[in-house]
């Protein structure tokens, strides 16, 4: 435990955004817009600065000891359980903290411009700051319970922000859907935590900070027998939050919120919480090959599934939403094959380019007078030059073209999917195919939005303008990050050192069974990785080349089909009698299937049994009215004696006392 001034900064990283939210929330409209916006940005900016300070402190420590923690109080203490209100930062949470506050800050700045004319300006920034607070609690929480608190907090903020424009019923419904679907996942998550407690507590003696990640990691072996069940339950939570099959359905609908929200919460940060949690619990997941296989399978299935849907969507944000679902699938795939570092790497690069793409789409929507349908866009290339160029960079990055960020992380995931013990040719091939689709639909998006002639009404066209500097500046910064962000993980086979993986090594070292207590020298990790890489770099080169080529093919094909030979696109639409296109456009009818199999039966059950039967019948009828009836009957009997005649009371009193005295006298 390193004790100096740095560790106390941890609490302020979390609390400063909360203070921002409280100030904005309590003063609300009494606060001028400029003050409110600047306050919110300053809170997140400060949080980012503090994160950097603590991060720099971590870099100064020996690799295996990179850990600072800050305990505010003991929160829960009974039996041999102790749960602290504590924050900690290790290499993994440092990465997440920097992403959340850094990208969060840029998006806050962007929102100054985007939300400038909105009535709920102060409310918006309240929720945004509250979100950063919850997300930082999630990331920096020192134990599973703190993580869960943050987990629920971000869920709440997500709900509030999706239905931010709640006067439109569709938005309110989308928020509700997100919340309910997330609750299903959270239920599994909670059961997972309970199962950990139930398994571990009888085996531990003295009072312990039992759900702290450090304790769990130290005693992971004891959890071995229950590992599969625990991991699958936790993964249900992760699937809810990170929008994996079968719980991904809320994320596309979540685009009902303001675009900065889509960028921050539903692309860059919150939805990666599931990946973060799986990576955080890596020491447990590696104990269960079954759970790992499930994670990998769900991940790759989600990646492929969502990217096929994205190809047909017409709403610019829906395309990006399905793209996000698909990219989250990649991250899960990485975790599932044991490449946690690669998963987190993709979390980071994805945060850069997906935030960029969403903010770019926001800029487009802003320019197009809130139009989101790509079919009436087009030709924006010259009218929105900054947006266009940054968007193009984001597109190339997500398509996985060297040397932009997406190439490194996606290629590493695909390589690990191919080469790890848990991977193989099939997961690689599916992921590879989805990567091409990604490039294809992104090219389609760019062509439909920025190329050709504008198809909007003349009135909308006359309003098209480039966004203000508060909006374009974050775009430029994110574009730069989307270019260079991947270089930190320059792979070994290309002569790099993969600093990113090295940085996370201490966190995942235990997971890889390298050492019990993370006493893992960087040098040895280095050596091992280098030795590992030495004998099959040729395969790595081939696969990386294939990914690059495949990404370029996807981009070119998308560009060609939607710009030069639209007849091909028409042909695609009518393929198989239009059946394929219709199925994809309607998202495989998954929502409809859920509606028929889960929602309607649930509704019927609620209506007939739970409402009419249990609520109206048992609770209202038997319990509420029943107990009232019993009291009424007793009362009507007692009422006979309450006749208001004083002499009657006097007689009753006298007789009562007499009987009582006689009883006492003769009972001995």
């Amino acid at each position, binding site marked *: 435990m390193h004790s100096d001034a740095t560790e106390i900064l941890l609490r302020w990283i979390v609390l400063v955004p909360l203070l921002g939210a409280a100030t904005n929330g309590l003063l609300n409209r009494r606060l001028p817009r400029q003050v409110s916006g600047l306050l919110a940005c300053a809170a997140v900016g400060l949080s980012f600065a503090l994160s950097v300070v603590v991060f720099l402190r971590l870099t100064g420590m020996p690799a295996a000891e990179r850990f600072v923690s800050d305990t505010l109080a003991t929160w829960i203490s009974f039996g041999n359980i102790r749960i602290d209100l504590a924050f900690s930062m290790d290499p993994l949470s440092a990465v997440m903290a920097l992403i959340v506050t850094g990208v969060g800050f840029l998006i806050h700045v962007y929102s100054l411009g985007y939300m400038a004319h909105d009535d709920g300006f102060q409310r918006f920034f309240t929720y945004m700051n509250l979100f950063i607070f919850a997300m930082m609690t999630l990331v920096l929480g020192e134990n599973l319970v703190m993580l869960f608190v943050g987990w629920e907090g971000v869920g709440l903020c997500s709900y509030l922000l999706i239905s931010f424009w709640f006067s439109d019923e569709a938005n309110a419904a989308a928020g509700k859907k997100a919340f309910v679907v997330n609750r299903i996942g959270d239920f599994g998550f909670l059961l997972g935590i309970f199962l950990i407690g139930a398994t571990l507590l009888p085996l531990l003696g003295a009072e312990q900070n039992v759900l702290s990640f450090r304790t769990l990691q130290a005693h992971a072996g004891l959890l071995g027998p229950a590992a599969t069940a625990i991991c699958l339950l936790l993964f249900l939570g992760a699937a809810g939050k990170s929008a994996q099959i079968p719980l991904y359905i809320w994320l596309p609908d979540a685009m009902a919120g303001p675009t900065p929200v889509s960028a921050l919460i539903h692309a860059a940060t919150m939805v990666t919480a599931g990946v973060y949690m799986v990576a955080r619990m890596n020491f447990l997941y590696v104990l269960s090959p079954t759970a790992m296989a499930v994670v990998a399978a769900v991940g790759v299935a989600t990646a492929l599934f969502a990217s096929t849907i994205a190809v047909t969507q017409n709403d610019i944000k829906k395309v990006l939403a399905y793209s996000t679902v698909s990219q989250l699938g990649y991250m899960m795939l990485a975790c599932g094959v044991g490449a946690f570092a690669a998963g987190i790497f993709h979390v980071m690069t994805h945060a850069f380019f997906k935030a960029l793409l969403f903010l770019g789409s926001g800029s487009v929507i802003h320019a197009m007078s809130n139009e989101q349908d790509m079919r009436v866009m087009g030709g924006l290339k010259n009218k929105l030059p900054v947006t266009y160029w940054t968007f193009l960079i984001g597109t190339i990055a997500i398509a996985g073209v060297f040397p932009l960020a997406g190439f490194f992380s996606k290629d590493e995931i695909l390589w690990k999917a191919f080469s790890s013990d848990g991977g193989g040719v099939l997961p690689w091939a599916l992921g590879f195919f989805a990567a091409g689709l990604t490039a294809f639909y992104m090219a389609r998006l760019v062509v439909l939005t920025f190329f050709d002639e504008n198809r909007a009404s003349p009135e909308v066209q006359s309003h098209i303008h480039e966004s203000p500097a508060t909006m374009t500046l974050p775009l430029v910064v994110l574009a730069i990050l989307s270019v260079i962000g991947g270089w930190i993980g320059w792979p070994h086979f290309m002569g790099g050192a993969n600093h990113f993986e090295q940085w996370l090594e201490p966190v995942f070292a235990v997971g890889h069974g390298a050492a019990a207590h993370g006493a893992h020298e960087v040098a040895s990790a280095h050596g091992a990785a280098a030795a590992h890489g030495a004998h099959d770099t040729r395969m790595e080169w081939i696969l990386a080349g294939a990914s690059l080529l495949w990404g370029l093919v996807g981009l070119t094909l998308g560009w060609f089909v939607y710009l030069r030979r639209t007849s091909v696109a028409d042909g695609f639409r009518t393929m198989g009698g239009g059946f394929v296109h219709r199925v994809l456009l309607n998202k495989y009818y998954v929502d409809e299937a859920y509606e028929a199999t889960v929602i309607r039966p649930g509704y019927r059950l609620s209506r007939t049994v739970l409402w009419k039967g249990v609520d109206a019948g048992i609770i209202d009828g038997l319990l509420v009215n029943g107990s009232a009836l019993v009291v009424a009957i007793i009362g009507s009997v007692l*009422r006979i004696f*309450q*006749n*208001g*005649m*004083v*002499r009657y009371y*006097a007689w009753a009193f*006298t007789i009562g006392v007499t009987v009582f005295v006689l009883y006492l006298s003769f009972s001995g």
Partner: protein
Amino acid sequence: MEITLTHYLILAAVLFLIGMVGFVVRRNAIVMLMCVELMLCSTNIVFAAFSRLHGDGGGHVFVLMNFAVAAAEAAIGLALLVEIYRRRRTVNVDDLKALME
């Protein structure tokens, strides 16, 4: 004739019975209040008698406390009755049954 404990107890019992019967049969609230005082008084006699018999001052303490309670009760009771009389022009308890349902 020597006066023994028994005499005190008989006196107390007689007083108590007079009070009790009066309380039950009379309808005038003031008389009923007086009957209550009479019953309280009879207990005072018992307390004093036993206190004397055992040579224990505790009984006296209770007698004094009883006085205080009785005085308070009389003060409140009479005040209420005065107020009732002002409003209803009667202190006959049979007429005072507004609390009957």
